């Protein structure tokens, strides 16, 4: 975070939902389609207000449901528009069919997921389960830690998505309740500087709904016995290639953002107090603030603990995580969601997979907390640090620990 305000920047106090709306306005989005759902609703209310006030010259479409939200935006993007929406939880579930098609069409949409736990039990509270449930279908996913990071990342998301080596939709995820409604100091960059950073939009150079460039969009590939399956594989491989290319592009775009605006956010993973760390905790999203405080307190007591935060979750920054955790004796991963078939957190699964390439096996444990809006406090992270320290000593990993089981 910068200490000095850039010239022409403005300071405001806002929550994460308003910060995302400001970013969308600064990115000069052409088309917004929305359907309100808790805890995303205020975000689209801010956008509707910005458009009504004439601050943002975009079309806003109030459709009848999330399936239409994304279908409208696909059409708009194919026609050359810069597009935006936000959703979460059951809304994201209802969006799933066009959600699957968006990355295959290589449309650079940006969508905020104001993360929320999924049903059932009934819950409208924060958690990462909704975003985690759609992690494997080809959208880039970045998780934010602070209100300022929400604003900065949402603008950067357009530059990443529209990069010709990427051309993929991006989810910017921020924690429901904690970031969506938590107000903080936020620096609004200058419009002219954001324009210079993003450059001219060019979203349908490769596929378009344009009478002057007639083409069939997404025709049926043939079945077995013809060239169809090989054509399918070619596009699938291309899509996977775009995902892998995005690791480099995300890093470059974050560096350029830092140079231009003075705020350097870790693009893939952030190493915090990892110098000489004997063991580490791995976090994702807004829980990281409390976790860093717990690490600071433990370090003050002489504990050799560090923290690694995962910002970019898809594509998974396997190499960056491997480098960050290479020298620890154990690590504990804190998830705000569950992987049902593995009885652990999804980030834990990914981290363990990435560490398979380490020269020696590093013991690891899964911690799950913050479900259904539960607060993850410094106290919870003290438990995580304490248990991971034991693991570093004896190497005996236990079953997944549920942090909010009793409180």
């Amino acid at each position: 975070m910068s200490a000095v305000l850039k010239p022409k920047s403005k300071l405001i106090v806002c929550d994460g939902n308003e910060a995302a709306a400001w970013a969308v306005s600064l990115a000069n989005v052409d088309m917004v389609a929305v359907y309100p759902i808790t805890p995303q609703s205020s975000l689209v209310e801010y956008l509707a207000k910005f458009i009504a006030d004439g601050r943002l010259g975009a079309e806003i479409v109030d459709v009848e449901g999330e399936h239409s939200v994304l279908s409208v935006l696909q059409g708009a993007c194919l026609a050359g528009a810069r597009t935006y929406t936000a959703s979460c939880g059951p809304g994201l579930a209802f969006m799933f069919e066009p959600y699957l098609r968006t990355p295959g069409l290589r449309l650079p949409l940006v969508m905020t997921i104001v993360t929320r736990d999924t049903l059932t039990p009934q819950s409208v509270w924060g958690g990462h389960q909704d975003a985690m449930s759609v992690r494997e279908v080809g959208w880039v996913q970045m998780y934010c830690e602070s209100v300022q990071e929400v604003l900065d990342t949402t603008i950067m998301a357009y530059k990443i998505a529209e990069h010709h080596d990427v051309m993929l939709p991006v989810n910017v995820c921020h924690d429901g309740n904690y970031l969506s409604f938590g107000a903080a100091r936020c620096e609004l960059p200058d419009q002219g500087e954001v324009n210079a950073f993003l450059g001219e939009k060019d979203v349908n150079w490769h596929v378009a709904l344009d009478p002057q460039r007639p083409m069939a969009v997404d025709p049926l590939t043939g079945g077995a016995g013809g060239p169809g399956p090989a054509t399918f594989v070619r596009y699938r491989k291309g899509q996977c290639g775009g995902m892998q290319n995005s690791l480099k592009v995300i890093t470059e775009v974050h560096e350029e953002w830092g140079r231009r605006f003075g705020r350097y956010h870790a693009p893939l993973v952030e190493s915090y107090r990892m110098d000489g760390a004997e063991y580490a905790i791995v976090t994702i999203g807004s829980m990281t603030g409390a976790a860093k405080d717990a690490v600071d307190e433990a370090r003050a007591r002489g504990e050799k603990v560090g923290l690694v935060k995962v910002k970019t979750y898809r594509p998974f920054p396997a190499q960056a995580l491997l480098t960050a955790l290479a020298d620890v004796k154990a690590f504990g991963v804190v998830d705000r969601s569950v992987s049902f078939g593995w009885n652990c957190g999804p980030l834990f699964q990914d981290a363990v997979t990435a560490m398979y390439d380490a020269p020696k096996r590093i013991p690891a444990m899964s911690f799950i907390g913050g479900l259904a809006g539960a607060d993850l406090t410094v106290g919870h992270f003290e438990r995580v640090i304490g248990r991971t320290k034991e693991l570093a000593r004896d190497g005996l990993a236990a079953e997944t620990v549920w942090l909010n089981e009793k409180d």
Partner: protein
Amino acid sequence: MSTTQQAYPMFDASTIPDDLCPIATKPTPMLPGDWRSMRPVVDRAKCVKCAVCWLYCPVQCVVEKAAWFDFNLKTCKGCGICATECPQRAIAMIEEAA
């Protein structure tokens, strides 16, 4: 009827990577008649030229003749709606030869 007649030339996609987004820039010569399994046959003695078949045909393949209606079998997909709707029961659906 030409299938390639159009207002603008097809889009030249040669500069776009061929593993990016599935698009097609050549019209297919395939017509519905190529995959039809049943074809309509009119009994000219029964046809009174009421045009119900012409009205209902979803692909507009019904062609007007001097004293009866017939079908353009290049575009007829063999759905049988005409046979079902014909008030004179003048249309029979028969299987295409294997």
